[in-house]
């Protein structure tokens, strides 16, 4: 590790020191820099190996998957497994359910949490302080501890095996109010006061003043919520028994016996199930990274 590697890469978000000149982009090959790159790439390959193995298996004809000794590359690559899985239709149904539930959870979380955060940040009302304290305390309650009484409640409400039953409990994420309120608190008061002097009500101030200034944090909260909802397993698993209403994690997890020990099909279904978020990540890496760090850190 040499001095050169420290300044080797320009990094967005790193404030340049007052005394330091603008760092030049240096791609000089140093022994330390090469060692770091080699080590980093080695670790990356190790981490990608399970994914590569899954993709390669999905491209094998079924008899080849159980050949001994283990071969990595398919002898006769084929998309047969993908064709079969898609033709069965179940997986496509689960993907659609996942989209519905995740969009529902994300939209409801954004609307309810933004409104609540605005109220805590910009308005005064009776009980404001203790209600906020109650929500912050709610952050500590693990959702896993609630599944049994929650199922009981959903049975009573008749919401078992409905999209609402799967989605609504996931909307209760008080940590998002906490994150949004901190951001709203930082918006200078002058802006909303100007709007209010012009006669704007709270809804207008929120929509025309606060929201346009909060796009990055809204994106962060939205992405984080969507990823969590997309991958949530325990509650959707408890709340659905009808395969037609299952999300991807639940369907693949419980109906995996549908694919029996057909490994190529299992892996093809896995690749298809993982693909949507992976593609989103490849297209919007910067936003996803921000979303996870912003919402995860606070």
């Amino acid at each position, binding site marked *: 590790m040499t001095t050169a*590697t*420290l300044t080797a*890469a*320009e990094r967005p978000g790193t404030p*340049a*020191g007052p005394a330091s000149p603008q760092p030049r982009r240096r791609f000089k090959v140093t022994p*330390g*820099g090469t060692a*770091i790159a080699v*080590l980093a*790439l080695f*670790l*990356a390959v190790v981490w990608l190996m399970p994914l590569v*193995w899954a993709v390669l298996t999905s491209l094998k004809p079924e008899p080849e998957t159980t050949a*001994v*000794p*283990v071969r990595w590359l398919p002898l006769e690559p084929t998309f047969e497994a993908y064709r079969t899985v898609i033709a069965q239709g179940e997986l496509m149904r689960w993907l659609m359910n996942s989209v519905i539930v995740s969009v529902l959870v994300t939209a409801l979380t954004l609307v*309810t*949490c933004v*409104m*609540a955060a605005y*109220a805590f*940040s910009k*308005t*005064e*009302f009776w009980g404001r302080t203790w209600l906020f304290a109650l929500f912050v305390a709610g*952050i*500590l*309650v693990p*959702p*896993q*501890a*609630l599944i*049994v*009484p929650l199922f*009981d*409640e959903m049975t009573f409400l008749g919401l078992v095996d409905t999209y609402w039953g799967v989605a609504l409990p996931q909307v209760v994420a*008080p940590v998002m*109010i*906490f994150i949004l309120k*901190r951001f709203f*608190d930082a918006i*200078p008061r002058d802006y909303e006061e100007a709007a209010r002097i012009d006669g704007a009500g709270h809804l207008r101030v929120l929509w025309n003043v606060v929201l346009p200034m909060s796009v990055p944090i809204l994106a962060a909260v939205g992405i984080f919520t969507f990823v969590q909802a997309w*991958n949530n*397993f325990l509650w959707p698993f*408890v709340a659905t028994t009808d395969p037609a209403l299952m999300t991807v*994690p*639940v369907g*693949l*997890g419980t109906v*995996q016996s549908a694919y029996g020990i057909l490994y190529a099909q*299992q*892996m093809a279904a896995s690749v298809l*199930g*993982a693909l949507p978020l992976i593609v989103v*990540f*490849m297209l919007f890496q910067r936003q996803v*990274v921000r979303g996870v760090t912003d919402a*995860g*850190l606070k």
Partner: protein
Amino acid sequence: MTQHASTGETPAVAPAPRSSSPRPARGTARRSAAGIWFVLPFTVLFAAFLVWPLIAGLWASFTDRSLAKEESSFVGLANWIEMFGDPAVWQSLWVTLLFTVFTTPPLVAIALAMALLTHRATARIGWFLRFSYFAPFLMPVAVVALIWEWMYQPGFGMINGLLETVAIPGVSWLTDESTVLLAIAATTVWWTVGFNYLLYLAALQGIPRYVYEAAALDGAGAWRRFTSITLPLLRRTTALIVLLQMVASLKLFDQAYLMTNGSGGPNYAARPIISYVFETGFTGLRIGYASAISYLFFAVIILVSVLQLRLFSRKEDAA
């Protein structure tokens, strides 16, 4: 995966600017009913799907409520007394703690190593590194379980295949009592390390470059700069990550359930406490007893969180 940020601690990196006045000044924002309407939708959901099940669960833990019959009666502390004498409760709690001990150190150390490597490597491979390290975190747990069950497969799986090329006999990872929890822990490290990695990466990028340049001018070597600047400046982030990770590990259920096909593994060697709650409530249909165990789990989570916050704030004071 359900990583919930369960702390109000201010992290080392706070991209959002902070205001000097958290409370609205009197007079400018009139005390009005408007705020109540704004908090109402979330409050209703919070009451219905968090507060209510919390209270209903506590009440149910004092009854013999069951999914198998309509009426239930008050049984006092019977469930709680049964719970403290139930070996399966303590065994599943032990599995949960063991899993937390297995997973937390590597999930923190590997995440830090990955973040340091990415931070130091040239920007040209940065995109590829972030993708490789973080992509598994975005995969649904069922996909992760399917892929790893296939890799752990004793006959034709990849891992035994690799072992056999170096003449080590294969292991039946998921059906051997002594390896099943370790195998699930290894899968978990692979799957979730990306989250901690991104938190570390953000923290590293928040350290101003001039700090290093000043140290370099003073003649501090690379190792010295790492131990005297990087690690101390990452302390708050590390504290946060350790806390989030321990709580996340204690919540083990998904991958353990799926990778043992719901059996909990040989001799229940991979049955965490939430799996036992799940079995008691939904297979045994005993809502009352399952609620009592849920509360034990809840208490463990709170205890660990409070202990850690105390520990870290004491360290902070000492530093």
